[in-house]
């Protein structure tokens, strides 16, 4: 078995350790005897979604994001067809914002891909924190780190998780990220996947399901991953508790 991971514009969108997300997906496939190939597309390349199984869209600085968003419109219809067909996408930080309709900043509007019904507005201050999310679809918490100026609003869409610690999409509604079909958008980096093997396996699972009609994943020894995840949960839940006791 083999799958193809498409990494969009790593030359521009690589701000928060996206290499870790790629590395995590590749290794967790390899440990199960699945060959995962990574195809990187640069700005101006024609992106072929037909053999893509997982698409990763990472984060960049505002300036770099601006460069990307002007070029993104040319792949919009292919990308949208891929999403509607159940294609797996993981979009982080800036990539998450680009999934939506637009990102408004004082310098003007950055048009997004409108793949998911959401929008983002710049706010102040930047929301910077360790994050813990809860989501019943996953066996244990999702942990990561957020650092974003944008406030994202996802309407009636399902969030990636509810915020147990940190700010989330906008610091107001207690939601973080978005889940739409097989798309996950999130502000969590750190990177996201190594300490959240359950999320990584879900991405691999939905990709295998679509390609081969089966998503039975051989379990791996995740003791190290779970320990690192657990550490964050216990440390910041404790911090939260101490703060509320004061």
């Amino acid at each position, binding site marked *: 078995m083999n799958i193809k991971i498409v990494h969009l514009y790593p*030359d*521009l969108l*690589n*701000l*928060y*350790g996206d*290499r*870790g997300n790629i*590395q*995590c997906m590749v*290794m967790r496939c390899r440990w199960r005897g699945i060959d995962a190939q990574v195809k990187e597309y640069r700005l101006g390349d024609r992106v072929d979604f037909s053999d893509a199984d997982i698409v990763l869209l990472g984060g960049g*600085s*505002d*300036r*770099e994001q601006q*460069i990307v968003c002007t070029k993104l419109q040319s792949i919009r219809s292919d990308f949208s067809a891929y999403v509607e067909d159940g294609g797996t996408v993981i979009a982080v930080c800036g990539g998450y914002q680009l999934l939506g309709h637009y990102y408004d900043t004082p310098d003007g509007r950055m048009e997004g891909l409108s793949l998911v019904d959401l929008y983002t507005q710049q706010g102040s201050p*930047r929301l*910077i924190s*360790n994050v813990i999310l809860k989501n019943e679809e996953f066996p244990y918490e999702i942990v990561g*780190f957020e*650092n974003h*100026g944008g406030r994202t609003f996802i309407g009636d869409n399902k969030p990636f998780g509810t915020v147990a610690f940190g700010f989330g999409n906008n610091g107001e509604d207690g939601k973080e990220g978005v889940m739409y079909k097989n798309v996950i958008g999130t502000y969590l*980096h*750190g*990177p996201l996947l*190594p*300490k959240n093997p359950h999320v990584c396996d879900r991405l691999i699972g939905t990709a295998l399901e679509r390609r081969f009609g089966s998503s039975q994943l051989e379990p791996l020894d995740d003791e*190290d*991953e779970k*320990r*690192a995840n657990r*550490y964050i949960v216990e440390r910041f839940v404790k911090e939260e508790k101490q703060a509320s006791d004061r």
Partner: protein
Amino acid sequence: MDIRRMTAVNTAKAASWASRLLGKGGTTFSGKLAMKMDPSVLKDLAAQVRKKIFVTCGTNGKTTTNNLLCSMLEAQGYKVVCNRMGANMLEGVAAAFAGAADLAGNLDADYACIEIDEASAVKVFRYFKPDYMIITNLFRDQLDRYGEIDIIMDVLEKAIRMAPDMKIIVNGDDSLAAFMAQETGNPYVCYGISEKVVSGQENSREVREGRFCKNCGALLEYDFYHYSQMGVYHCPSCSFKRPAIQYDASNVSFGNGLSFDVSGRHLEANYRGFYNIYNILAVWSAVSEAQLPTDRFNEVLGSYKPQFGRNEVFRLGESRVLLNLAKNPAGFNQNIAAVLEDKTPKDLIIVINDNAQDGKDISWLWDVDFDSLSHESIRSITVSGIRALDMHLRLKYVGIKSTTSPDTASAIRQKLSEGCKNLYVLVNYTALYDAHKLLQEMEKKYEH
């Protein structure tokens, strides 16, 4: 005599002495106190510097460059104010000046060599305008504190514009730093290395900053890279290119010690790490620009004792321990390269904390090329510090085994007793002080 300044200076001295006694090592507190008692203490003391004020900015190499420059000046018999311990925010700078003043609140100094945190320069320059600024390089560092590299560049540029007569001494091989220096309109000179020294850099997976022309957004083209974004570059679609290099190192060799020629002189130092070529070049440029004598340059390089945690060697009985600070991807990659230059068997301890000064966001660990640590000369890797578990995972995902040991002291002790007598300890910022103190105490015990 200015009573207010005198009181401020003396209070700062007392506070600094007291905090040293308490083992805090923090100069920040005493500087804060001095500025509170006399808001113009920094301005007044800086104005008393008789000749020139040098400042050093840039992501990596600040402390080494600044301290080496200070040593060069002292070797010529000058009196120099210097924040040697690397306290480089506004309060730390104030503490350095207050600490150098006499009890009457007066300063007897020919020069000042001050390293300044990039984001703090705008604050410091309200009190004095330096004559020279060295910019070593601009890398991604501590993301959660500054946001992004663009923000650092903006705020540093703003500071430079506050001192339009200040001459910039910039690493011309760094497209980001060079572009910024040109943008400000300040006078500037460049140092760099125009010959290809390192092979195989084209295929490196290293994350490089500033791949894009800051002027027009096009992808920069490189003749070759030294490391990270350092190299010989030009923009294919606008006029931006690597500026003319006034202080150009040639016949560069590095590995066990390093040497090169510049301005017709041969320089040699017993340091490791390619990045130290740039640090020395920066100092050479500064000394030359200020038209100071360079006759004792090699001598000072030879006797220079690095600031703690910069290639610092400890002898513990039969074991050699090398302690090195590695706080961002570019620094870490360079440190790993330096570890691998030593071909003999070795143990490695990596300590990662996530305190405020380290950056609470440790995602940068995934931008470091740890893959190269799967090297036969590395006999064991122990991970420690607050984020040991993350570091352990980081290595797991490149197929490298490591042992987790939350307590750094016991990790070091264990490797000393059962390791191969050649230990490297790579630490990020807040882990440095404890590791240094521990190794120093252990070294003392061995001496007696």
